[in-house]
């Protein structure tokens, strides 16, 4: 107890601490490099700088690192094919660290200090909402690759993931037609699930389904017993579980669902945040037979996708899987490239104008950038199969036009977004 912490000891321990921290740093080879420049030798005029802004550390790193991989792959491919306008792309990667304020700081840094021509980034709605004012006040450009809850339409953000009517609404429709009329809604307690469930409830009411219950779990919480008990009470004979849980809670939910005897045959669940990567982490045996709705699955059968999957696996290893946000991030780079080439310059206003109408044969099928800054895309429903990939059980015959303002929710009913017409803008009353 009364041991003296003398100078000698202090020296030993402090040096050991410093030593081991240096060692950790030296050995942590998988830690991200702040700047990854495939063409570092090029001088400024030969390169186009782009920013990549995702969480490389913290709780969101799990998902966002793979997205960075997909974006880097696209940049590498474009560079080796000769670049854009004869210039190589130089990517500047910044770590948002799963902290929404950091996202704002790093966005400002990428715009002001690095003078990037465009930024690809963000995953959570919280991070996007936090950088949105930065992009709007500086009139800069963000390409955002993740499906989201809608109810937003910024001139400065291009959304390459799904709007609610391209994922949530069609999946509710499909479950209603094929799996039952009674829905139980489970979600994490934050903006996306709550907004999504508001939409779903309004939609069910309009289409003749019923919401028999809803429950929210704090992010990261894993005690789902009360929820399962509620589901059994509300749906004694089976019914649809609509799942907007995010992250770790999903693992607990599906593990315990199985133990509670709620099988996918009687209680099919539809998830909007579970893709190939998550299936791998949760365990196929708990998820097999459940459903998920996305625009892209790794099993999509298009020539463009076969090429993409092969290229990705060659670059990052055969055991890697690809999910929807990764594909959306990959095509974002290509869409931006086309817009720059059409504009003939990286000038932001001209690129934005050129982006509208850009279309590409993406791995997920043909996508087109519409004047509301969202993509028209095919919607697919997949069922988890034995190898952890998805069997596509339904796909819309044609790409679905994006509707950012939800038409089931009263407050936004009848509103539209059109940035190609200065008279209309981000939120106008449609006739």
């Amino acid at each position, binding site marked *: 107890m009364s041991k003296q912490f003398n100078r000698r000891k202090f020296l030993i321990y402090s040096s050991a601490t410093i030593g081991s921290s240096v060692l950790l740093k030296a050995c942590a*080879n*998988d830690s991200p490099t702040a700047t990854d420049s495939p063409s570092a030798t090029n001088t400024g005029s030969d390169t186009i700088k782009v920013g990549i802004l995702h969480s490389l550390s913290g709780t969101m790193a799990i998902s966002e690192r793979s997205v960075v991989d997909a974006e880097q792959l696209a940049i590498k491919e474009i560079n080796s094919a000769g670049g854009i306008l004869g210039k190589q792309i130089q990517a500047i990667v910044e770590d948002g660290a799963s902290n929404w304020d950091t996202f704002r700081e790093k966005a400002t840094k990428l715009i002001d200090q690095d003078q990037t021509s465009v930024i690809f980034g963000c995953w959570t709605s919280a991070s996007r909402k936090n950088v949105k004012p930065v992009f709007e006040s500086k009139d800069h450009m963000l390409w955002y690759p993740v499906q989201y809850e809608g109810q937003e339409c910024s001139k400065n953000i291009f959304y390459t993931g799904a709007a609610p009517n391209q994922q949530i609404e069609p999946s509710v429709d499909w479950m209603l037609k094929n799996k039952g009329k009674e829905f139980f809604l489970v979600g994490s307690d934050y903006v996306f699930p709550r907004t999504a469930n508001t939409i779903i409830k309004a939609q069910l009411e309009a289409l003749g389904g019923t919401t028999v219950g809803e429950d929210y779990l704090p992010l990261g919480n894993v005690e789902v*017993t009360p929820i399962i008990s509620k589901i059994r009470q509300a749906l004694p004979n089976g019914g649809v579980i609509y799942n907007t849980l995010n992250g*770790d809670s999903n693992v607990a939910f599906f593990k*315990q669902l199985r*133990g*509670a005897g709620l099988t996918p045959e009687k209680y099919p669940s539809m998830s909007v945040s579970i893709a190939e990567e998550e299936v791998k982490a949760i365990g196929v045996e708990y998820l097999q037979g459940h459903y998920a709705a996305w625009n892209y699955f790794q099993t999509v059968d298009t020539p463009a996708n076969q090429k993409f999957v092969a290229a990705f696996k060659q670059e990052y290893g055969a055991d890697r899987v690809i999910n929807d946000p990764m594909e959306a991030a990959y095509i974002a780079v290509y869409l931006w490239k086309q817009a720059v080439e059409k504009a003939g310059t990286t000038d932001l206003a001209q690129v934005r104008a050129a982006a509208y109408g850009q279309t590409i044969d993406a791995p997920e099928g043909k996508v087109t950038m519409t004047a509301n800054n969202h993509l028209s895309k095919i919607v697919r429903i997949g069922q988890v199969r034995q190898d952890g990939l998805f069997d596509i059980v339904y796909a819309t015959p044609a790409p679905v036009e994006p509707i950012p303002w939800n038409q089931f929710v009263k407050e936004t009913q009848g509103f539209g977004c059109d940035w190609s017409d200065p008279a209309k803008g981000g939120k106008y009353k449609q006739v």
Partner: protein
Amino acid sequence: MLTGFLEALFNGISIGAVLLIAALGLAIIFGLMGVINMAHGELMMFGAYTTFVVQNACKELGGVWFEFYIFLALIAAFLFTAVVGLILERGVIRYLYGRPLETLLATWGVSLIFQQFVRSVNWLLVIGIFLFCLLFFGGLKILNSRNILGKIRNWVVAVLLLLSLGMTIGTGNLLSNRQVVTQPWFGAQNVDVTAPNWLQEGISLGGVQLPFARLFIIALTIVCVAGIYLFLQRSNWGLRIRAVTQNRSMSACLGIPTQRVDAITFALGSGLAGVAGCAISLLGSVGPNTGQNYIIDTFMVVVVGGVGNLAGTILAALGIGTANFLIGSGTLAFLLSPIQPLADLLNFFATTSMAKVLVFALIIVFLQWKPGGIFPQKGRTVDI
């Protein structure tokens, strides 16, 4: 009605059992040693990762091995986390006894290091740490055994440090272009721990669904509590631990090796965290953040239970678990439906996330009434 009551009872107990097994090690360390161990959650995470490793090994062996790997994993998790706990106690905590705030900060730092460690651990890192320890501490030991250094000692240590660092970094750079050694073992991604088949399902008994994983955890909790009780009450080391807890200096005078007792108590508490980690891998996810999900709940259990009291910890865990279930599942609101305003209020709290709010509020109210928890500690030791 009876079914509903039984179901509520079972679910309350099963939530409580998870809280209890997670809090048990913490309660022992906090109660007996007065150390607030913020790294407890990360020790649980180590237990969960040990389960993952054992599971993978047993998957290779196949058949019966995989069906019963969980027992092997329990033992391995206990031993591994106990050793980690021992190193933690010898390396950090023993210098901080009697200084709760410093311990809190230090163990919090340790918890962050542990989290990052599982994210980035690979062969290179392990080889590097091993080599450095061998060179530096080995060299130190040799130097210490000869008493010739005298005044230049500090310089020699500094040179030794630089030398061993340089050699380690050099070796690291030599090895670093091989994929095998730089591949992270686990990565930042959550890993998948599959329960054996017989633990995945459940059984329906008189309308109450009993998941086997929950039953297993309840049984495991009972075994752990009984084991701890017997250890503390019936074994020699248990007697010593209790003696040191009550009066450290008197025990030391009577020839009890107090430092060893501290180390053993800490290792025991850490080992229990490992067992808890193994248990929770049956229910939820295994990832670098796993421990964080439990640390707040376990602290609540310890605080409500009262310091240094096993019975208090048990009661608190079961109480909080049952309250969480009754409020979160809406059962309480249903039971109180005759009293309309009260039922409406409870209905507002009848989602899992709101139930936590209400339970937390109730805990605060409870602590106003009984600041020392259910069974407050008596006597002079409180003043430490």
